[in-house]
């Protein structure tokens, strides 16, 4: 029986094999899988952000649900008059009587609404410069927000951790010394106001060795991560090769190999014609 799970399994196998086929060569299966991935991701993110952020948190705060039986003043009626016009365009986004979730109107949210509109004005060349205001706000806010976090957790706390603990045993002491030497020489390597010669050059060279060890560790972990992902995909391919999924892996693999063979053969022929 054709179920969503079965269709999903076949589609998953097709995309996995399509991506893996790149290891052979850049081919139509890979391109199809790549384009589907990019398109679906973009659509998914836009839809998700709109329905989890813009609609409930922005529109929802500007036009919260009206309480039944309450008498509202002129401002409210005017404000919800605008809302009703928007509602007549799309009642899914702007349902009747306001959006559920927030108790009162928060006019401060007009600022992000305006900045959001400014951002979209990038698409209109004449007034595109207005987008800079929105970008300036984002950059300023992000810098301010991150400044404290980095200063506290990554600078102050990390400096503290490089101090040598003389009260511990000799292993702790040696570890502390290695940490201090590694940190200082690593930092010296990135000091470019002085030529890296003499004692300074030797110290910065020690720094390079520490950095290389660190990059080696990062590379090792990166390989481990990639292999884990490969295991995940292979696990699914093995699962979907079963009878309950109508041997999706085997069928699609055979079909792909056959079509890739034809594609490679015809491609080679065309190439030969072009060079002839």
């Amino acid at each position, binding site marked *: 029986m054709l179920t969503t799970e079965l269709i999903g399994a076949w589609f998953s196998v097709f995309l996995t094999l399509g991506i893996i086929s790149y*290891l*052979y060569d850049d081919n139509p299966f890979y391109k199809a899988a790549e384009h589907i991935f990019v398109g679906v991701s973009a659509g*998914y*993110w836009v839809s*998700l*952000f709109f329905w*989890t*952020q813009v609609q409930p948190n922005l529109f929802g705060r500007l036009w919260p649900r009206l309480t039944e039986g309450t008498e509202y003043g002129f401002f409210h009626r005017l404000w919800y008059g605008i809302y009703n016009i928007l509602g007549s365009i799309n009642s899914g986004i702007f349902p009747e009587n306001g959006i559920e*979730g*927030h108790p009162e109107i928060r006019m401060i949210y007009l600022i992000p609404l305006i900045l959001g509109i400014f951002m979209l004005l990038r698409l209109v060349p004449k007034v595109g410069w207005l987008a800079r205001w929105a970008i300036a706000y984002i950059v300023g806010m992000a810098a301010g*927000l*991150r400044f*404290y*976090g*980095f200063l*506290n*957790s*990554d600078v102050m*706390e*990390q400096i*503290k*951790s490089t101090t040598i603990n003389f009260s511990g045993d000799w292993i702790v002491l040696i570890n502390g010394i290695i940490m201090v030497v590694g940190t200082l020489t690593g930092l010296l390597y990135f000091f470019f106001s002085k030529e890296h010669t003499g004692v300074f050059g030797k110290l910065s060279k020690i720094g390079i060795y520490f950095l290389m060890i*660190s990059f080696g*560790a*990062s590379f090792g*972990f*990166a*390989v*481990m*991560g990639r*292999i*884990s*992902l*490969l*295991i*995940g995909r*292979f*696990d699914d391919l*093995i699962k979907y090769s079963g009878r309950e999924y109508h041997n999706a892996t085997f069928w699609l693999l055979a079909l792909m190999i056959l079509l890739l063979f034809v594609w490679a053969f015809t491609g080679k022929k065309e190439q030969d014609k072009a060079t002839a």
Partner: protein
Amino acid sequence: MKKFIDIIIKLGSVDRRYIFVLVGLSVLIPLIYPLEIPIRPTQQSQDVFNAIDALPPNSKVLVSFEYGPSTKPEIHPMSMALLRQLFGKGFKVYATALWPDGIFMSNDAFAIMETEFPLEYGVDYVNLGFKPGNEAVVKGIASDIRTLYTTDARLNQISNIPMMEGINDVSDFDFVFSLSAGYPGTKEWVQYACDPHNIPMSTGCTSIQVTEVLPYVANGQVKGILAGMPGAAEYEKLINHPGKATGRMAAQSFAHLVIVAFIIFGNITYFVQRKREQKK
């Protein structure tokens, strides 16, 4: 000898696709024919276990799901092992997601947990769901959770959920655990919530993130770390419940052996070739 060196040099310039096939087979064969390999927990995994094990009864633990299907093989086994330990000890679990796909991962994990433990939603665990905003969400949880979340993932009003009583910000939790696959993730929890409010936290993250998080672990800002799939397998061993990660460790180990062999071989070829060119 010359012939032997010629062979080595020739093998050094072998088509990379043969290497891909060999690495692929080294992963595939142990998955089809599983092998049991011994797993010994590292100190970092043990530290995570000890930190959670030492929590008092009825502790409130915030678990953040910051991963998606692409990193599921590495992180999901950790989630399962961690939730088994938390529910096994009767702790209250509050789930949140900084990644949109995180909510699917948490739903999947809780669905399995419900088959293993007698859990009641809203009493034993709550899923607050995904909120976009990256570090702003972490900061929101740190300062005022009720402004950020008015409803949970099932659209229940937060004020109607029994276990949310008395929960206003991150300092109302006894422990934070970040299941992280990148940004936003462990780093943001350390910087914006746990360091400023002095809340103990731990993490289970993808291998690629480990070197980024290790300085926090070394300094005690993060209590231990579950590093990639081996970390998950070690944790399964610690809670005495072998799962998917344990079964996949043979494939991981074999693939590593093949890659290491190729790295060594590549280096030998490089030096042999360089020596020959110098002689010329």
